[in-house]
C-alpha cells in the first residue's frame, strides 16, 4: 500500500468517522441525539478561540503542561540508542488521561450538560474524570469492573475522595469492557443531562477522533521539545502502550503523516499471545464491532467478544480504537506486545536505572525496546503514559 495516499486519513476520519474500513457509529437509536450533537459540534467547539483559551490555560496551570521530554541516559546506553521519555506521568493525577478529560469537561459545559459518566479500567481515567468534575462542580459517576476495583484500590479511594460515585460493573469479565458496557447503558438511560467522557480513542464516532485530538498535545510538545534538544523535530521511533490507544494516538498524532517516523504500538500479551490469557488485540482479533465502532476485536468465530487478560487493568481490553486498527492494517504502525512478566520486569528495571516508577500499562512499552534492533543513530521517544503509584500493591507482591 502506498502510505502517501492514505496519510490524510490517519488524522482525519471521514464525516462518518471512518479510518479506512474502521470506525463509524454503530449505536442504538436511543443514543442518536447525543452522538449526533457531538458529531456536528465537536470540531466547531474545539476550534473556538474561547474554548482553546480555557483548554490551554487548564493544560498549563492545572495539568502542569508542557510535560518534560527527558533524556534517559542510562537506559540509552543500555539499549544503544538515544531514548527520550515523554513524561505524561508528571501530569496532575499521574497519567495522560487528564488531557482528554479537561477537554471533554469544557465541551460538556458548552453542551449544557449537568452530569458526567465515565468508564475506567486502571482507574486513571476515572480519577482524571472525577478530578475535572470536582474542578467544575459537576456530578460524576464512574463505572469500574469489580475485578479492577480490587486491583486498583488506591484509585477507587481517590475517586471517592474527589466526590465521585463508583459503580461496580459485575457482568462478564468484570473489567474495562464491562465497565464500558455499563457506562453506555447508563448514558442510554439518561441522555439529556448527561455527557459520557470516554477514556480512550474508542466508542462511536466522534469519540475516537475527539479523544485523539485532545491527546495530540503529547506529540505537539514532543516535536517542539525534540527540535530544541536535537535540532530535529522528528524522532526515528515513537513507542507507546495500547489499551484502547489514547496515549499512543496522542504520541503518534503529529507524526502520522511523517513516514520516516516509525510508530510502535505495544499491546499486552498477558501470559503470552497464544496462551489463551492475553489482550494482544491485533494479534488475536478479527474485524468486528465493539462499543459502537468497527475495529479489530478479540472474539469467537460466532462473534461473541472474548474476555481478555492482562496484569494491567488499563490494557485489559478486547478491542483497540479504529485509528489503530487502520494503522495496523495499513502497516503504518508496528504492533508489538509484551507479557505480564516482561512488563513487571521493565517496571522494576526502569525504576532502578532511571528513578522513575512507571504504571504497569506504561511498563509494557519499555519491554519492547531491547527487541527493536535499534541503532546508535536512532532517536526514540517512549510515551511514559503514567506513574506506578496505583500499581504498588501488584509491585509489592513481586519485590
Amino acid at each position, binding site marked *: 500500500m502506498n502510505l502517501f495516499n492514505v496519510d490524510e486519513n490517519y488524522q482525519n476520519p471521514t464525516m*462518518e468517522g471512518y479510518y479506512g474500513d474502521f470506525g*463509524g*457509529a*454503530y*449505536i*442504538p*437509536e*436511543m443514543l*442518536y*441525539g447525543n452522538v449526533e450533537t457531538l458529531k456536528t459540534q465537536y470540531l466547531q467547539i474545539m476550534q473556538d478561540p474561547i474554548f482553546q483559551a480555557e483548554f490551554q490555560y487548564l493544560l498549563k496551570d492545572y495539568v502542569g503542561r508542557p510535560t518534560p521530554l527527558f533524556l534517559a541516559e542510562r537506559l540509552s546506553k543500555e539499549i544503544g540508542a538515544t531514548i527520550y521519555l515523554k513524561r505524561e506521568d508528571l501530569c496532575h493525577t499521574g497519567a495522560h488521561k487528564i488531557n482528554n478529560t479537561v477537554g471533554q469537561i469544557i465541551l460538556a459545559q458548552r453542551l449544557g450538560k449537568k452530569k458526567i459518566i465515565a468508564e475506567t479500567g486502571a482507574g486513571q481515567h476515572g480519577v482524571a474524570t472525577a478530578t475535572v468534575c470536582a474542578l467544575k462542580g459537576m456530578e460524576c459517576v464512574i463505572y469500574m469492573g469489580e475485578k479492577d476495583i480490587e486491583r486498583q484500590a488506591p484509585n477507587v479511594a481517590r475517586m471517592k475522595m474527589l466526590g465521585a460515585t463508583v459503580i461496580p460493573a459485575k*457482568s*462478564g469479565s468484570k473489567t474495562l*469492557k464491562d465497565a464500558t*458496557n455499563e457506562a*453506555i*447503558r447508563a448514558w*442510554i*438511560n*439518561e*441522555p*439529556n443531562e448527561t455527557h459520557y467522557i470516554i477514556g480512550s480513542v474508542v466508542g462511536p464516532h466522534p469519540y475516537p477522533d475527539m479523544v485523539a485530538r485532545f491527546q495530540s498535545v503529547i506529540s505537539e510538545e514532543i516535536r517542539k521539545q525534540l527540535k530544541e534538544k536535537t535540532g530535529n523535530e522528528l524522532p526515528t521511533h515513537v513507542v507507546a502502550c495500547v489499551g484502547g490507544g489514547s496515549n499512543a494516538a496522542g504520541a503518534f498524532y503529529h507524526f502520522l503523516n511523517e513516514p520516516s517516523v516509525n510508530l510502535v504500538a505495544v499491546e499486552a500479551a498477558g501470559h503470552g499471545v497464544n496462551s489463551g490469557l492475553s489482550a494482544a488485540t491485533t494479534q488475536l482479533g*478479527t*474485524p*468486528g*464491532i*465493539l*462499543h*459502537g465502532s468497527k475495529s479489530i*476485536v478479540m*472474539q469467537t*468465530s*460466532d*462473534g*461473541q*467478544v472474548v474476555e481478555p487478560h492482562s496484569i494491567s487493568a488499563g490494557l485489559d481490553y478486547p478491542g483497540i480504537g479504529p485509528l489503530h486498527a487502520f494503522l495496523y492494517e495499513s502497516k503504518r504502525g508496528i504492533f508489538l506486545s509484551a507479557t505480564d512478566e516482561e512488563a513487571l520486569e521493565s517496571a522494576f528495571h526502569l525504576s532502578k536505572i532511571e528513578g522513575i516508577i512507571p504504571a504497569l500499562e506504561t511498563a509494557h512499552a519499555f519491554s519492547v525496546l531491547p527487541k527493536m534492533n535499534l541503532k546508535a543513530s536512532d532517536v526514540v521517544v517512549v510515551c511514559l503514559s503514567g506513574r506506578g503509584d496505583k500499581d504498588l500493591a501488584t509491585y509489592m507482591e513481586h519485590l
Partner: protein
Amino acid sequence: MSKLELVFKEKSKRVLNVYCTAGYPSLDSTMKVMGSLQKNGADIIELGMPYSDPLADGEVIQVSSIKALANGMNIAVLFDQIKDMRKSISIPVILMGYMNPILQYGFENFCKKAKEVGVDGLILPDLPLFEFEQSYGKIITENNLDFIFLVTPETPVDRIKKLDSLSNGFLYAVSSSATTGKDKDFNVVAQYLQKLQAMQLKNPILVGFGIKDKATFDAATLHTQGAIIGSAYIQQLTKGGDIETTTSQFLNSVLGA
C-alpha cells in the same frame, strides 16, 4: 402481502409482540417457548439472538443472553433449531440481535438463511440508519425481509418519517430513551405516542421497553396498534417451572383473558 402486514390488517388494536431469547431457559427450549407464545395469544414473536455485549438491553435480557450463550446457542444452532418452524408456527417471527455476531456469520448469508427458514423481519438495534442506507439495507430488501427501525421520544420528526419510510411491518417506538426492562412514567409516554399517531406514518406502531403487565399494556396500546413485552416475560421464564404453564399464565394476565 407480508405476514406482518396481515397481522395488522386483521387486528388494528392490542397487537402483542413478545420477545424471547433463543436458547433460554435451556438450549432446546426455543421452539417450545415459541409454540407456547403462539398458543397463548402472542401475535408476533421477537426472537433474540444472544450476544455477549448487548448494549441496548437491561439486566434481565443480559442475564438471559449470557445463559443462552453458555447453553451453547449461536446463529448456526438457532437456524438449525428453527429450520422447520413453519410446520408449527404460523405467526410472524422477527429476529432481534446485534451486528457483530451477524457480521461474523456473514451478513448476506444470514439474511438468506433467515428467509429460507421463514423469518419475516429483522430488528438490529446497533445497525444505524447511515450504515443501513450505505449497504446493509439493500441486502435485507433483496432477501425480502422486513426491517424494523426504532424511534424514541428524542427522535426528530424528519428522522421519524425517514425511519418509517425505510421500515416495513411496523415501527418500533421505544417508550423512552432507555435500555430494556426499566419502568416508565406512562403519562409522559402517552403524549409521545399521541404525537406519533398524529403523524400518519406508513407503518403501524408497536411500543416497547417498560411494558410488563396488563396496566402498562393497556396504557401503551391506547394510542398505538400494539406493544412489545420482553424483560417481564423473561423474568417469568427465569422463575423456572413448566414453560407452557408460565407462558399461558403470563399472557393471560397481560391480555386480561
